[in-house]
């Protein structure tokens, strides 16, 4: 059948079983938006293109399906860049359609022209500029395939306006043929056998689990492997929801703001089993002193991650779930009793702590701990970036995979709130909280309008310390308290902002108000913003100072 390019996009989305897209219209995507007018696929219009792309990212992390984004050419496309880079760093599958000026105008600095394939080259898994409508079905098929297979990631398709209007024969391919792209899924059996032997012989093993566990759906296999071999599990920020936080073998997060006992365990371990994680600098600290006595097994679907940052003794390239399933068959139980007792001792010696006086200033950690209690660890959580993000990682113990979304790699302020809208859209019946800072929330605060318009009843908990708290903490610790451009004392009044958008706004000053405010938010059938006024100069501890090994933590005093 002959279709216009714009019609082809919608037809392809139907074949890919896309139910929901996010976007923002404009001149160069008028033909596409005309097709969306009566399409089956639902479309959520954000209030800024960055909001759309983060929402699609949150949708993907909550659902496991690719996020779909539409934006116009030029500024519409460039407004996506931060969101695309965020998704790329965290391996989130996404297919992004941008409008482009008509092909005869490309390269002439036409109105709203930007070379978006050039601009996004380093932050996409792959991208396409479509120059002939005949190629469009194949390109879309390839884009979905590339985005969702192997190490997943964002793929961008730039669609010139005349291509959207041009007619061509539509044959949606069943298969793709991309000779330069063949992800490896099955791990090498010999390597898996070696890994199993080493794991069974280890006396002080630590499993270090990353986002790959969540993305490959390996949480069940991971749990079983940990239990069978008696291996404790520490996770990265990205891996937090991949292992139940309350489990006796859960060590919590490792790294710069990891728990004392997780970092000590990694430092003393005789074996590190890295699963779908990439030895980021925030995890390893000083890399030359990372896990000095450990053999390292590294399972990852991306061969380029192996050996990139640390030397690896047993590399296994493959899908984490498939590899763990094989490893499970071969790994024998090990006697890790003394090791677990040692870790428990570290835990007793230096637990996470803060001091909430009943009548004192509100502690940010207390708010997050209460949020954890009120939701039973069952809510879907997003965070922005900064202190509140680290406190969430420390105090919210996740129980289910895909229940947490945070910008791990890029550290994008402004990610969390729009991402929470995407999570809510993906799982409408569930409770979604965005834990935000007063700085980050203002970066995409305009999406309150989207939340209200599309009845996305997300609850925003602002940990409002009137500062860019993490930057302030670093200035305090490493720049002699010279607080340079970190003060946020001039508002806005978040309660009135929420009300102006048609959401419920609440303010909390005292510890005893926290529980009731949270319960009221949870019971409210619509978006809620809670402005938690917390102690301004609270710091995140433990902390591994930059350039230090991860056992060299500043443990902090409760002030």
């Amino acid at each position, binding site marked *: 059948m002959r279709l216009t390019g714009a019609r082809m996009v919608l037809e392809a989305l139907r074949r890919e079983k896309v139910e929901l897209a996010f976007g923002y219209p404009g001149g160069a995507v008028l033909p596409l938006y005309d097709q969306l007018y009566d399409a089956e696929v639902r479309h959520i219009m954000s209030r800024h293109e960055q909001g759309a792309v983060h929402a699609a990212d949150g949708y993907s992390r909550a659902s496991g399906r690719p996020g779909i984004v539409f934006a116009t050419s030029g500024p519409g496309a460039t407004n996506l860049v931060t969101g695309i880079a965020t998704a790329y760093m965290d391996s989130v599958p996404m297919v992004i359609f941008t409008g482009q000026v008509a092909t005869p105008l490309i390269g002439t600095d036409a109105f709203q022209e930007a070379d978006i394939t050039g601009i996004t*080259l380093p932050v996409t898994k792959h991208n396409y500029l479509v120059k002939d409508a005949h190629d469009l079905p194949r390109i879309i098929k390839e884009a979905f395939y590339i985005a969702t297979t192997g190490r997943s990631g964002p793929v961008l398709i730039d669609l010139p306006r005349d291509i959207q209007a041009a007619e061509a024969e539509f044959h949606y391919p069943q298969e793709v043929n991309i000779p330069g792209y063949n992800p490896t899924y099955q791990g090498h059996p010999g390597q898996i056998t070696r890994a199993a032997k080493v794991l069974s012989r280890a006396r002080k093993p630590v499993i270090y689990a990353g986002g790959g566990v969540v993305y490959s759906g390996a949480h069940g296999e991971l749990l079983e492997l940990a239990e069978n071999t008696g291996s404790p599990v520490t996770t990265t920020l990205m891996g937090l929801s991949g292992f139940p936080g309350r489990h006796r073998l859960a060590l919590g997060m490792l790294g710069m703001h990891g728990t004392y006992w997780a970092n000590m365990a990694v430092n003393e371990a005789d074996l590190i089993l890295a699963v779908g994680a990439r030895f980021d600098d925030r995890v390893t600290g000083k890399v030359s002193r990372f896990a000095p006595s450990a053999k390292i097994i590294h399972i990852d679907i*991306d061969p380029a991650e192996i*050996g990139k940052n640390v030397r690896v003794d047993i590399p296994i390239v493959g899908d984490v779930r498939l590899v763990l399933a094989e490893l499970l068959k071969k790994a024998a139980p090990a006697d890790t009793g003394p090791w677990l007792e040692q870790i428990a001792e570290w835990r007793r010696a230096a637990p996470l702590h803060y001091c909430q006086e009943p009548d004192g200033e509100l502690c940010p950690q207390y708010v997050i701990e209460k949020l954890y209690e009120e939701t039973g660890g069952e809510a879907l959580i997003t965070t922005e970036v900064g202190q509140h993000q680290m406190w969430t990682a420390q105090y919210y113990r996740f129980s289910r995979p895909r229940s947490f979304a945070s910008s791990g790699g890029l550290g994008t302020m402004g990610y969390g709130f729009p991402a929470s809208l995407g999570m809510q859209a993906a799982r409408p019946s569930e409770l979604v909280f965005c834990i935000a800072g007063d700085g980050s929330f203002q970066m995409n605060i305009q999406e309150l309008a989207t939340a209200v318009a599309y009845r996305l009843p997300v609850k925003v908990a602002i940990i409002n310390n009137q500062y860019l708290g993490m930057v302030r903490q670093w200035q305090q610790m490493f720049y002699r308290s010279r607080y340079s451009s970190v003060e946020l004392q001039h508002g806005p009044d978040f309660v009135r902002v929420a009300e102006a958008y048609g959401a419920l706004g609440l303010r909390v000053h005292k510890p005893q108000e926290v529980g009731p405010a949270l319960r009221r938010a949870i019971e409210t059938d619509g978006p809620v913003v809670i402005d938690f006024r917390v102690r301004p100069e609270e710091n995140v501890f433990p902390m591994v100072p930059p350039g230090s090994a991860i056992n060299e933590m500043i443990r902090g005093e409760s002030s």
Partner: protein
Amino acid sequence: MKYVLAVLVENKPGVLARVAGLFSRRGFNIESLAVGRTLDRSLSRMTLEVDADEKTLEQVVKQLNKLINVLKISNLTLEPSVGRELVLIKVCANAASRSEIQQIAETFRAKIVDVSLQSLIIEVTGNEEKIEAITLLLAHYGILEIVRTGKIALLRGSKTTKNGEA
């Protein structure tokens, strides 16, 4: 150490930018790069000279492999191969020095491809040592300009680096 890589890529717009961009953003150094079509017109072959340690080279190869348009990468450094570069050198030459320069060119089996009253252009093909040697000698007369193609290389014998083969 310098490595020579033969990179087989799809012959499509933007592929060179993807490869070159990868090198700059990951902080890898390209010493030279030569690109041209292969027998199969849908493919191009890039010959890259990379100055790197072994660990960096491994990352270069792995990151290149992640590019969707890259089909195959062969490391020609450790295998017997023939590597050549073509260089054009414009050198100062007057009536007095011209014949000396001609002798040098002959010794290196180089060709004189342009003559003027004040200068000569010499075309020389060879490996790195040869190019280095003639350049040093000609510098004595004053080199006005020099242009190099970058190295290209093939494996010796009947073995090839074509797609799908070892």
